[in-house]
């Protein structure tokens, strides 16, 4: 599903060159639930951003769903992200000025879906995460766990094949974290969604199919 070959990422300033990712090779199969662990600054989020096509590798090849995305134009890349990928962030990244339902509908706005279709799909996604009674609430009226569930609903509303989660439980207490983890496991099990999750939490990582450890930009496990 995702194939990374000799991926390197170097950040350059006028005087300093920082190697964030060093020759990573990784194959992630369709329907796999993979977690990435490592200390802060080891390149986990950078790697996830490269897989999510939000950042470009300095070297190496990346293929998603057997497509070489390095030749894609900005518009084609945006469409690809919209159709194939869903994102979950540690800090939720909800738009506070929009109601829950509107936040969840966002990815569908870039697909020319009708308003009726958008509303139906967003309501369905919110039902899946147990928030069908919070459609008209604003994010600021929700708890952290509820916000993350809204973010999950937004990630799955477009029925992507891959979900990339960057520390989805990082801002939550353990009970809330477990709830979120349950939702992700169910998504992977029931819908066959491929999930790549960056986490600091060993217990969460052990609930996934495979664990990849990074240290100073290199894969150590």
């Amino acid at each position, binding site marked *: 599903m995702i194939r990374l070959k000799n991926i390197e990422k170097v950040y350059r300033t006028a005087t300093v060159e920082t190697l964030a990712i060093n020759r990573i090779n990784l194959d992630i199969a369709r329907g796999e639930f993979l977690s990435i662990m490592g200390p802060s600054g080891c390149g986990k*989020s*950078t790697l996830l*951003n490269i897989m*999510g096509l*939000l*950042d470009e590798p300095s070297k190496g090849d990346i293929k998603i769903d057997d497509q070489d995305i390095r030749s894609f134009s*900005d*518009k084609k*890349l*945006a*469409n690809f*992200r*919209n*159709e194939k990928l869903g*994102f979950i*962030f540690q*800090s939720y*990244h909800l*738009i506070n*000025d*929009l109601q829950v339902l*509107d936040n969840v*509908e*966002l*990815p569908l*706005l*870039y*697909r020319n879906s009708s*308003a009726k279709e958008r509303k139906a799909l967003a309501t369905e996604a919110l039902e899946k995460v147990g928030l069908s009674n919070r459609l008209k609430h604003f994010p600021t009226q929700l708890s952290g766990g509820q916000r993350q569930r809204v973010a999950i609903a*937004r990630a799955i509303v*477009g029925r992507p094949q891959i979900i990339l989660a960057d520390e989805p439980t990082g801002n939550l207490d353990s009970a809330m974290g477990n709830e979120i983890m349950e939702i992700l496991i169910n998504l992977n099990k029931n819908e066959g969604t491929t999930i790549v999750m960056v986490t600091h939490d060993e217990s969460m990582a052990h609930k996934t199919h495979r664990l990849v450890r990074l240290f100073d930009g290199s894969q150590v496990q």
Partner: protein
Amino acid sequence: MYKHLFKLIWNKRKQNILFLSEILISFLVVFAVFSYLTYYYKNYIKPLGFDYDRVWAVSYNSDQLSKNADSLNIFYTNLNKALKAMPEIEAISFSSSNYPYSSSFMSTGLTQGGKKFNQISDFNVGSDYQKVWNIKLIDGRWFSPEDLISKNKEIIINETFSKEMFGTAKTAGKLIGDFDDKRKFKIIGVVNDFKANGDFVPANNLMFSRLDTTNLKWASTLLIRVRETAGASFESKLYKFMATMMRSAVEIQHVDEMRDARNKETIIPMLLFIIVAGFLIINVALGLFGVLWYNINKRKGEIGLRRAIGASGISVSTQMVLESLILATISVLIGCFFAVQFPLLNVFDVASGVYLIAILLSVLFIYTLVIACSLYPGRQAAAIHPAIALHED
């Protein structure tokens, strides 16, 4: 997408008040400027109604002249003959002091068919006044010596005045004024509208009446159309001749210079107004630019998220420009509500068309300003790197 943007704008209405107010104020200022400019432009493009080139105005003091009407008449007849004999003079006419660009006004009023007409400019003129100014008649005739024996006072009016009284019907020969028959005025001719107060000032209703022996004592100006050959030496000769004849100091003014001076009375305040409004608009433009720039920096996380979930760079910049245009539309609609009151309530007695053109120009100007101010911030928003934006937030 529009519904989504409306929802976003509505939910952020408090944050958008500054932007909305700036656009509304700019719209009203621009509307005032365009109303002003349209009004003057519409007046400017209307024909002048006379030819001022090579016309000199000789003002004199008639106190030293005979008070006897017959003696005065003989004096003016002789003066007229002596001047006409000068080869540099093409035509001459005596006039009351309110000739074009003179800053002197004489007006009268009358009631015709129950309708009151006030502020009618009243020009007392000599028989060759038409030749001096090259005034074109569109109906009837100019004054002739036979008019002196007419029982009604003959007048010549302008086209607009004629239309206001009788519509498109022929006016020459009609008696006007709700007086008894003897006191009615007889219209003997109609001339083109006559912009006597400057190129930018509208032609108002006017009537020419003839200077005759009864009112010759009021004549205080001699208008002379000179030939092209007339220069400074002739002016000096004319000055000496007139001063000797009038037994007092005289003043010779060139009407083209008087016209320039009158036009400056309109142009200078107009330029000052445009400069002040221009500075205000520049400030507003910088303000808009700043507000949009600030909004984009504040919304980096949202922009990063939109890029992550499927927005291309172009759709992000389009969204930023569209949001500005929607906000501008709200302000423009409020502004139009106020602006439309001017033609509806006939404020300042200006034609509705002037205000409608000004509204249209203001709307176009505001949209151009908003697009110009939002394009660059929109492009900057599109250039935001999603990974960095999401990480920073």
